[in-house]
């Protein structure tokens, strides 16, 4: 695998959407390629940032209680 191939698969690698053969190929490349490894770590970090920025919102307790009553 070369860098363009790795780049092309990186999103799916980060999203855990590659099959096991592809995962091994990417891992092998990352271990030998600091540039792609850096890029991979950045993508992972970015995905985590998006998740944690958005998922701290939870339903207000009063709303949860209201729904519980409506639905029961």
């Amino acid at each position, binding site marked *: 695998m070369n860098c363009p191939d790795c780049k092309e698969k990186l*999103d799916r690698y980060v*999203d855990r959407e590659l099959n096991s053969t592809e995962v091994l190929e990417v891992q092998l490349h990352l271990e030998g390629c600091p540039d792609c490894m*850096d890029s991979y*770590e950045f993508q992972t970090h970015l*995905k985590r*940032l998006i998740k944690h920025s958005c*998922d701290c919102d939870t*339903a207000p307790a009063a709303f949860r209680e209201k*729904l519980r009553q409506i*639905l029961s």
Partner: protein
Amino acid sequence: MAESQSQAPTTFAEEALTHLDTLYRGALRLTRDPDQAQDLVQEAYLRALRYQHSYQTGTNMKAWLFAIMRNLFWDRFKGSRKEDVSLDDVGEFVLYDKLRDEGAKPEADVLDKMAASEVVAAVEELPPLHREVVLLVDVEGFSYKDAAETLGVPIGTVMSRLHRARQQLQKSLFEYAVESGIVRASNKEMPTQ
């Protein structure tokens, strides 16, 4: 998918309510308004209860509920469309490469300095068709397949929308990073190859 074994929810409604935070967050990001989000989620739950016979036990209830909520959103949204549904191709924009070009050490601290509120704002700026893919895949951790089923589109569509959404998101975050001084904008243009 097995929820907790120890205290399994006893009724359909109770089980459905274990997914409330996911639905509420999704509705909040889609409507960008807490009151509208509550209305939307409440209506989604009422509809889910009414159509519970169409839910197949053992399948992904979170995805099923989310689909009901986003379909309701789109029904309303189409009636009062004020913004672009979709996204123009912004071209390849890779934040990592861009930061490198600007001489910032990307991984070190640029991302850590970004305020959560600004990241949320960047997500909410995405057109809803792209926003919902990011919500499912990045925020809620749906697989492409589950996202595709939830949205009623092929997996390839999920992937292309996600790709485009991420380009736009990275572009917005870069602009924010420059405007807020997290990244010092270089005056010198990078030499074009």
